[in-house]
């Protein structure tokens, strides 16, 4: 009886310790969020002084309006960039994954890791040729007299289409990986049965694989949306023209400007983070699977 009592105490005090540790960790992860929210609700005069941990004396959305005035057009650029690039790169990944799992050919086992390597490389090692090639695309478009109405579709240097194209190309490894691993779990018998029924390669995809693909599409689309929205290196190198810069680059420049208006910066940071945060809050389940797939764990 006595021993049970002591065990009870140990068990419960260690429980309390676990919750205390978890709460302390929560404080660490929430610290920046608190500061972001509180600072962005303050006017400039308050945001600049030692009172950064205090609540704003009179919360106002003034900083958000100012941040939106500066980041708004870039926010729109990010939408124009991220949504088409996400859709196209998911479709491409799905087709690749289908071929590499259900239509394997000689050498496809060698090809796949060679493809995967592309998602680990430091993109610095391709940037110089990338800029050169995309500039050549513009030269070619000029020479071909592409009409102005279609010019925005040309994936050249300094255009949203060019940046989207780059994200689609360098998204091939991860999207292919997730779809291939997902389709590998679909029994080959299903595919064989459809083939015996006379289905060709497109019909097998359309009627067998594609209807089963929604979870994989969710994972891949959320992954690509988040990565492309948050990406900075390609964006800063390939968008010399300020008008087409996505929101990460605009936020970076806002933070680098001479007069540091912390309240506007924090509001801007919150705005820039909002779309991916909302996706995380509502579709976190799929985000998590994408993360784990990124470590080649399937």
């Amino acid at each position: 009886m006595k021993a049970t009592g002591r065990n009870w105490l140990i068990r419960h005090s260690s429980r309390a310790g676990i919750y205390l540790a978890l709460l302390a960790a929560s404080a660490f992860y929430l610290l920046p969020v608190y500061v972001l929210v509180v600072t962005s609700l303050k006017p400039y005069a308050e945001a600049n002084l030692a009172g950064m941990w205090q609540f704003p004396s009179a919360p106002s959305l003034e900083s958000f309006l100012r941040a939106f005035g500066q980041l708004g057009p870039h926010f729109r650029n990010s939408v124009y960039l991220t949504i088409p690039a996400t859709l196209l790169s998911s479709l491409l990944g799905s087709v690749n994954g289908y071929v590499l799992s259900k239509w394997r050919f000689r050498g496809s086992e060698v090809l796949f890791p060679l493809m995967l390597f592309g998602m680990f490389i430091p993109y610095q090692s391709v940037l110089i040729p990338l800029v050169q090639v995309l500039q050549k695309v513009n030269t070619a478009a000029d020479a071909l007299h592409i009409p102005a109405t279609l010019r925005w579709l040309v994936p050249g240097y300094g255009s949203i289409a060019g940046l989207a194209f780059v994200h689609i190309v360098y998204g091939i490894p991860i999207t292919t990986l997730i779809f291939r691993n997902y389709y590998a779990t679909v029994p080959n018998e299903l595919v064989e049965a459809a083939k015996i029924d006379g289905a060709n390669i497109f019909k097998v995809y359309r009627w067998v694989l594609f209807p089963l693909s929604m979870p994989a599409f969710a994972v891949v689309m959320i992954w690509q949306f988040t990565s492309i929205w948050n990406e900075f290196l390609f964006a800063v190198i390939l968008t010399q023209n300020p008008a087409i810069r996505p929101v990460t680059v605009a936020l970076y420049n806002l933070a680098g400007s001479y007069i540091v208006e912390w309240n506007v910066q924090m509001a801007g940071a919150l705005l820039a983070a909002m779309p991916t945060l909302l996706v995380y809050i509502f579709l976190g389940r799929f985000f998590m699977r994408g993360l784990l797939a990124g470590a080649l764990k399937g």
Partner: protein
Amino acid sequence: MSMRRISWDRVISILLILPSILAIAVFVYGFIAWSGWVSLSNWDGLRPDLSWAGFVNYAKLFANPRFQIDLRNTVVFTVLFLGTCIVIGLGLAILLDQGIRGENFFRSLFLFPMAISFIVTGVTWRWLLAPGDPATGRLTGINVLLDAVGIPLSRWYTDPTVVHIQPTSAMGQFLQQIDLGFLTTPNFGLPVAMISIVIAATWQMSGYVMAMYLAGLRGIPEELREAARVDGASEWQVYQNIVFPLLRPVTLSVVIVLGHISLKIFDLVAAMSKKGPGFATDVPAYFMFETTFQGDHYSQGASIAIFLLVTVSLLVIPYLVYSTRREAEL
């Protein structure tokens, strides 16, 4: 008839994947080769000049004091970043694995920074760790909290201090005697400013490590642990002898994923402190960015890029080979 259709499907399957294969061949392997060539050329300035220079750019790079500092910074950052992420990530995963209430809530909370851009993280932590002006007492950020509880103030990422073994200390003199005097130079020290970057990076990535370890812990059958407990093993022994060894593959994945992120870290440094005082927070990727796209020293920039690629490859290629082999065995 049937044979004919199958081989027709075969042709289409190749055609379907061909664009991606060509894209990877050109945009990954072709471009890497092209960068490699640029790194061996005389291209210095806006006008491309691909005449052969040999390994001059690499020799210049390794002789450059800034690059030597970058190497030190990369090693320091990688060790501290991986260390803290693994300790915090594994610790949180073990805590969450104790069947606690609100597990989903805590897990989502620890992981949410992963959904955010490194730029947002950098801008936010730059503000949190802004040192203010201790001389006039105008403090900002974390320093306000530290001041309130009487902890000495830090200059965070604006601190130029490099902690290293002093040549005049007993240890320093001993090292000089055994011809290891170079270990007493700042190039083998710890740049204090780098700790700020480690804090921000850990905030962003430790939840990911937690998620990976948690998935690993969930993969260990409860019967294994129960059997050890029945055999009289203490809870610590269960972890030491059963859980930790079974988590080794997870640790390997964590080291590969975080390691390659750490070697090529750029966004966070650019948004937080750039090269820092006396290059205290400079990293090769940032050096490459400045050299190439702000300084127009293309061949020099390409040599940094190729250096980055080689270090990342040394980490990733064995892992890819290992994963592929293991998958083939399954």
